[in-house]
């Protein structure tokens, strides 16, 4: 057992602290509530079983936990679709035979093609920053990078979106938001 300062008795507190965040994190990668619940359950079950493997010298608990969640989502889609290049639902075409919540599909209709084009890590940082309102310190812990690196990735991702959004969509935004 590693001296990680975390044991199973502490796990209940950690669960309370992270379960909603992990669920949201997974939901943004699946767009389907039942799937997100299943994968959240799987994430915490794995984390609970492997808590003694967590090494505090190698990273923070949150980094470790989010990595388990990330891997769980990836495994889910790769096993389901049998493709090596799927990390989450963003890597699937909109018409793939995968369950999506109607509300999520509707809301994402206009932007999903552009978010899709971002690298998985870029997209993750953008969504954590914009949707979850996380600080760069929090994001850095989740993605295992330093804060300044996350800032750069975010900035470049937004810049990339600016360049990719077609003029027509951009004009429609101008019209609808005035």
């Amino acid at each position: 057992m590693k001296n990680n300062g975390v044991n199973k008795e502490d796990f209940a507190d950690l669960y309370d602290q992270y379960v909603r965040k992990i669920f949201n994190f997974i939901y943004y990668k699946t767009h389907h509530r039942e799937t997100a619940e299943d994968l959240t359950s799987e994430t915490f079950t794995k984390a609970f079983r492997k808590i003694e493997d967590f090494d505090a010298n190698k990273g923070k608990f949150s980094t470790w936990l989010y990595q388990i969640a990330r891997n769980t989502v990836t495994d889910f889609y790769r096993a389901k679709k049998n493709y090596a290049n799927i990390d989450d639902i963003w890597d699937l075409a909109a018409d793939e035979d995968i369950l999506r919540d109607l509300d999520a599909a509707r809301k994402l209709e206009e932007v999903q093609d552009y978010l899709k084009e971002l690298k998985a890590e870029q997209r993750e940082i953008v969504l954590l920053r914009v949707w979850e309102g996380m600080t760069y310190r929090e994001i850095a812990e989740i993605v295992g990078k330093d804060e300044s690196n996350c800032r750069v990735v975010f900035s470049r991702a937004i810049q990339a979106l600016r360049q990719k959004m077609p003029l027509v969509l951009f004009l429609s935004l101008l019209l609808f938001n005035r």
Partner: protein
Amino acid sequence: MDEKILKILEDIYSVDGSLKAHEEALVRIIQKLLASKPESKIDENFISSLRVKLLESAKPLKEESPQKYMFDLSLMFKRIVFAGVSLAVILTVAFFGLKSGTIKTGNNALAIKNVGSNAFGNIVFSDQSKAQSQGQAENSQPLSSAPATADGRGTSQSTSIAAPIMGMGGGGGTTAPGMGIAYFPATYSYTGDKFEVMSDGLVYKRVIDNPSGSDLVNVINKMNLGLDLNKFGDLKVDSIQISEDKEFGYSLYIDFTQNTFSINQNWEKWPQFAGSNLTELPPDSQIIAISDKFLADYGIDMSKYGKGELMQSRIYYMAAMKGAAAPAADSMPMPVYSQYVSVVYPLVIGDQEVYDQGGQKYGLTVGVDLAQKRVVNVYNISTGSFESSKYDIETNAEKLIGIAEKGGLYGYNYYPAAENSLKIELGTPTQGLVVMWKYDGSKSSEMFVPSLIFPITSGQENYFYRNNVIVPLVGSMMDQSGGGIMPMPLETAPSK
């Protein structure tokens, strides 16, 4: 302005102050992203029940002396943990026909059964790039209708069509057509030699056998699961997953419904990795050697696959790393360096290599982590036999060249021509097969259709991800210029 947006803008400007000039655009994008946030709404009952479940599981875990079932199963999984050893062996052997040291993924010589002409129904290449091209239609312009020159050589700008090219991206460094980073307008022109189409017109279809069947359910039923499977009707095994219980171990996922299996790193057994700061790419030969060694060590039968080669994404990444000049500077993606690359071993059917519709070779794919110099996954390992059926083919070289100059499959996206369009030159085509999936209700069939493979001979160096342009000789292509269907053959051609 919303304080949240202001804060995000501050962050962006702290990295690149010049972006302040685009503030209005940035604000709109952030607003749009905020408005697009789906409601996640976690169920509080779910939180409570999961909490109880986890805490209840603590006691047995503490008391239990974990009994792990180890056994030797070929060179591949030396230490597999599975709830039922016999089941794993039976299932795996039944599926792969395991012999010592080798995982058989099918007969060495492919079993191909001819089933007569036009047996697979209509062959239609649907607009698979629709999802990626949504939102671009506003920028569209009509396809040029000018024909290719008579000999197909040196077609001018007026006969070429502007089409977007998507640079490869995506997480994990493994890529697929349709996952893009950047779009560049491009024009294609054929510069190859005259040619004749000599295809035998055979379309192939993979036949899925299901050796697991319902018999395997009886094996499971003998395990003490606390559940009587006889109470359920018409059970069969759809899939299993077995895992190596060792450091850097792998998991094997077997899908009996599709007769495929895949290998993934067993995340729980891979040490935490702090990330990498790779500054240079290893040579191709070194990466392929890592992949070859893995396949050989684990005894995966490669008799129906060609030699491994790096997927085209690598070229993109290399170009980005070198800072190669992109034709559209403001569309240039930021330099990225994937920690992961994929090696593809093309499936070979009847001496023809298989390509995907984006022009990359298609077959068994191995993901390699460059930082750890380890294989992380193996995908698209398929089993089963094939059926073949003869179809009429298009033999008019001029028309085929004309389609190639419009980008062929995946090439009919819209994008305005521009002065800085990439000038893509196409060489003399070879013949191969292109994979497609035909959907019939809830089932899909994997088909392999004879096609011309036009190699891209020039213009590829600037962030262009495609190696080849594909033009099928059989079936119909959705003509994205107008949503109509372009029949192939374009004119009725006698069956050879």
